[in-house]
């Protein structure tokens, strides 16, 4: 029992240390929650082995306390609606929404029962292994299971060898699966000589290797003096053409090349990786920046700038570690004195640390026209116009827009009216229209014909009041209104914004081209307004649209790099909020 206690406190300490590294300012309230996450993130087996008893109660209480807090917040919000102003596309917004609506996922703990069967400490003979095997009743092959356990318990390689010897004695051959696990053990323990032996055997015995074996060999060999053999394995995979190497295979090879001072080879491999259409892992890039600190020449600088360009062109946001390396690399340059700061950006698009305005989110006129055409073709007409609307209706709408545009704001009537079920739909819409009409904006409200039927939710009086302040278009009840919204907003020109809470992801998915998808997302971020605070008869407030583009950018003597925080979960349609600001002194 005492032993238990010791390890657990030790574990706690390491976690605390780790956490300090995670974030410069630990907010104590969240600390235990992160513990909870760390536990849930590890596999069931290891979590239980370390100490499930000590942490789980603590973490769960913290969880519930956090929950309570959220609930309390929610209760205080009852007089109005929508929690606080948030940007829909900022990292973590989706998570926030799910917390508010109480849909937070419960951590999944696997219910699979593990057999506790520690491997022996010392090498055994065939008879002893057979005896041990008799006691085993798992679902895996005994030898494979044993080798996996040896990896977990970090047993001496001699034990594994004796097991293989026993198998060889018994069957006269060793199955591929067992060899593979043995290789796994060797790689995890960095047994260079054994890995090389295995490489020899595998190459002789099997004509080709499948993915797991070649990955293990590459990983094992790249850390050894025989690292060039890792490259031959990589070339072999490429030659096969049935499989393609993964970006991790490249990572290992590049690492080996850098460790062995073969810089040109490393860059060659990196460009090969990009040419294959793979996305490099973050630690590959980090490796280059880390090495770049000690190498000071133009070639390196150009290549590293190339990486930054690559990040920009592909809208990849670096992780926190990589950003750290990038910062250090810039600051290590002796000639030009760079200074890096971690900042956030003001809503106006100015960097908080250097006051420089970031790149605008506006599309160029050409981009805008391309987007407009594509959207019309792919999203609204699609393969079959009848799926979203009818040709007559589409024609009618086109004429209507031609006659009445340009608009300043297009409103998705149903979406806005249904933001809250607690208030009357037509009243919400009326107030929103009122509020916008006061600013002398030309409004278009899109709706469906059923809104005109004059029910309790859609009072005719309200509808009439609205129609004096805005232009209306009602689609058939069977038609989709979002494509019309997008079309009307795009048709009105670059100043026109639109209001909906819909993320429009399904419409974005209709566009097959990834470049156009990106343009669409850019346009959406810069033009989509969201009703963020609403108190009946008092406040109608919108979340302002973003004005700056969240992308790696430079002006020559400054760099701004957005990055993902380690603990922030970001979904694919969100952009990071943290930035690295680099300036020449």
């Amino acid at each position, binding site marked *: 029992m005492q*032993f*238990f206690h010791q*390890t657990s406190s030790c574990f706690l300490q390491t976690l605390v240390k780790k956490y300090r590294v995670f974030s410069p300012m630990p907010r104590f309230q969240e600390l235990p929650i992160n513990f909870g996450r760390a536990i849930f993130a590890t596999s069931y087996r290891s979590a239980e*082995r370390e100490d499930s008893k000590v942490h789980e109660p603590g973490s769960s209480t913290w969880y519930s306390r956090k929950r309570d807090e959220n609930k309390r917040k929610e209760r205080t919000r009852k007089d109005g609606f929508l929690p606080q102003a948030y940007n829909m596309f900022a990292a973590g917004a989706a998570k926030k929404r799910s917390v508010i609506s109480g849909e937070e996922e419960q951590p999944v703990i696997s219910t699979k029962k593990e057999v*506790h*069967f*520690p491997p*022996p*400490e*010392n*090498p055994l*003979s065939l008879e002893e292994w057979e005896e*041990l095997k008799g*006691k085993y009743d798992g679902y895996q092959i005994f030898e494979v299971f044993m080798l996996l356990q040896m990896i977990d*318990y970090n047993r001496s390689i*001699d034990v594994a*060898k*004796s097991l*293989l*010897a026993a*198998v*060889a*004695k018994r069957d*006269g*051959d*060793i199955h*591929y*699966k067992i060899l*593979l696990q043995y290789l796994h053990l060797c790689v995890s323990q960095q047994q260079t000589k054994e890995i090389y032996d295995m490489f*020899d*055997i595998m190459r*002789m*015995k*099997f*004509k*080709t*290797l*499948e993915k*797991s*074996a070649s990955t293990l060999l590459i990983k094992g060999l790249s850390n050894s003096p025989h690292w060039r053999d890792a490259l031959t394995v990589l070339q072999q995979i490429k030659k*096969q*053409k*049935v*499989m*393609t190497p993964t970006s991790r295979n490249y990572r290992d090879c590049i690492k080996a090349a850098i460790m062995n001072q073969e810089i040109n080879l490393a860059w060659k491999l990196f460009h090969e990786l990009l040419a294959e259409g793979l996305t490099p892992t973050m630690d590959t890039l980090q490796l280059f920046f880390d090495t770049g600190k000690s190498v000071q020449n133009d070639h390196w600088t150009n290549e590293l700038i190339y990486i930054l360009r690559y990040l920009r062109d592909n809208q990849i946001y670096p992780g926190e570690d990589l950003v750290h390396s990038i910062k250090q690399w810039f600051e290590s340059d002796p000639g030009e004195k760079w200074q890096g700061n971690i900042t956030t950006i003001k809503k106006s698009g100015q960097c908080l640390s250097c006051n420089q305005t970031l790149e605008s989110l506006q599309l160029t006129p050409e981009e805008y026209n391309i987007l407009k055409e594509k959207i019309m073709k792919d999203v609204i007409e699609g393969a*079959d116009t*009848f*799926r*979203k609307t*009818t040709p007559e209706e589409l024609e009618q709408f086109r004429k209507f827009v031609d006659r009445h545009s340009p608009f300043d704001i297009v409103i998705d009537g*149903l979406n806005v009216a*249904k933001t809250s079920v607690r208030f009357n739909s037509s009243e919400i819409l009326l107030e929103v229209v009122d509020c916008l009409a006061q600013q002398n904006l030309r409004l278009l409200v899109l709706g*469906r014909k*059923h809104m005109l*039927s004059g*029910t309790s*939710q859609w009072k005719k009086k309200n509808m009439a009041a609205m129609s004096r302040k805005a232009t209306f278009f009602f689609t058939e*009840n*069977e038609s989709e*209104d979002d494509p019309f919204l997008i079309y009307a907003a795009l048709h009105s020109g670059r100043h026109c914004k639109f209001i909906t809470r819909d993320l429009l992801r399904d419409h974005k998915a209709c566009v097959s081209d990834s470049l156009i998808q990106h343009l669409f997302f850019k346009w959406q971020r810069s033009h989509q307004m969201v009703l963020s605070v609403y108190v009946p008869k008092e406040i109608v407030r919108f979340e302002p649209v973003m004005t700056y583009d969240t992308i790696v950018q430079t002006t020559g003597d400054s760099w701004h790099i957005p990055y993902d925080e380690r603990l922030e979960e970001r979904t694919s349609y969100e952009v990071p909020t943290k930035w690295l600001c680099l300036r020449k002194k």
Partner: protein
Amino acid sequence: MRILSVCLVNVIRRSFFQLTAQSGTFLILRSKVNTCRTFVLSTCLNKNSLPDATEKLNLDGWKDLMRTTSQEETSEKDSDAEEDPNLTATKELIEVLRLTTKLVPENISEEQFQNLLELPTKTSKKKYLAFLFKRELKKKAEKEKKEKKKESSRETCVEKNSSNKPENRLIKSFWSKSEDIVHSWRVAQSMIFGQPLVFDMSYENEMSQKEIKYTVKQMMECEAFNRRAKDPFHFHYCSLTTDSPYHKEFVKRYGEAWDKLLVTVSEKAYVEIFPRDQIVYLTADSPNEMKKFENDKIYIIGCLVDGAGKPGISFARAKRLNLATARLPLDRYLDWQIGGKNLTLNQMACILLALKDTGDWKEALKFVPQRKHSGFVGTSLTETGIGMKTKTNRITASQGVSHFAAKSSNRQTKIKWWEDVSS
């Protein structure tokens, strides 16, 4: 002294293993292990390298064995290596994959292999191999079952032969063949007098080869169920052109029976055969709920297995032709849980047949798979609901505004549905 110490090692080792076998948590174990080690050191046992030496000898022995066996194998393989490099690479890969118990079939025919080579991505190749593997397993299991059956039937045959007495019977034993004749007769009659049920076969372009296969399989089940029904439909397969993928698949599946099938196959579209005002297109996307089954309507089922998740295809088709549409009242009668509201073709046919026979929705909706819903909506509740409605109607009727009230309630339900859809 030396013998003693060897004994000691054995004792320690054995006790240790017993412990591990009885198990306990890992942490406790480690503490025991530690005590073990200190004990060994104190008696200076590590000087005694006798047992270790013997084990060292055979520790690397297996490697030589592996090398010798491997050389034999490679020499064998070299003989048939004069082929297309891509082909051999794939073959070799399949071989290695099988060793790692990935889902790979044992035997692959030439045709399947060609299919495999044509697949564009790694994942699609893996999926195809897994599919072949599963099919192989199934076939093997079936074969085994068959053989077992054969054996058992042989045994019973022997038993029967021993007691070979003619039985005394009133009617000659009834064979499935004569049953078939009765069924065919009924279907033939329905082809003259029966209500048509149309299958719209114009979705070929929306589907992959696999989905077409599934569709044909479902259609066969439809046909089989219809044949056994008391009062069968007259099946029309519309827009089915000869030598289209559908047609080929049908001929492949049915064989010679395809020409003797008691259904009407036509290259024409249903709008050319039937009057428009009688047609009702059944689609899950329809805003209209089907109230009851009508015997003078011509119902159309779209033959579409939609694996790609393209919603609204059949509804778009009905809109294009300006036809009346309807959906089954699944939400009204069932507590829906999971799964799409679109049912398979054979389920639709079963439901329609049951409706035709009984007109009872509950009876008909038993064919909806049970995993999709948690049972019927409480009967008493709906009945009282209907009763209340009629009551209010009666009251308002006495006040003289019944017509309006009925209309508004109807409209309200419609609106409610639209709000659900649009939100």
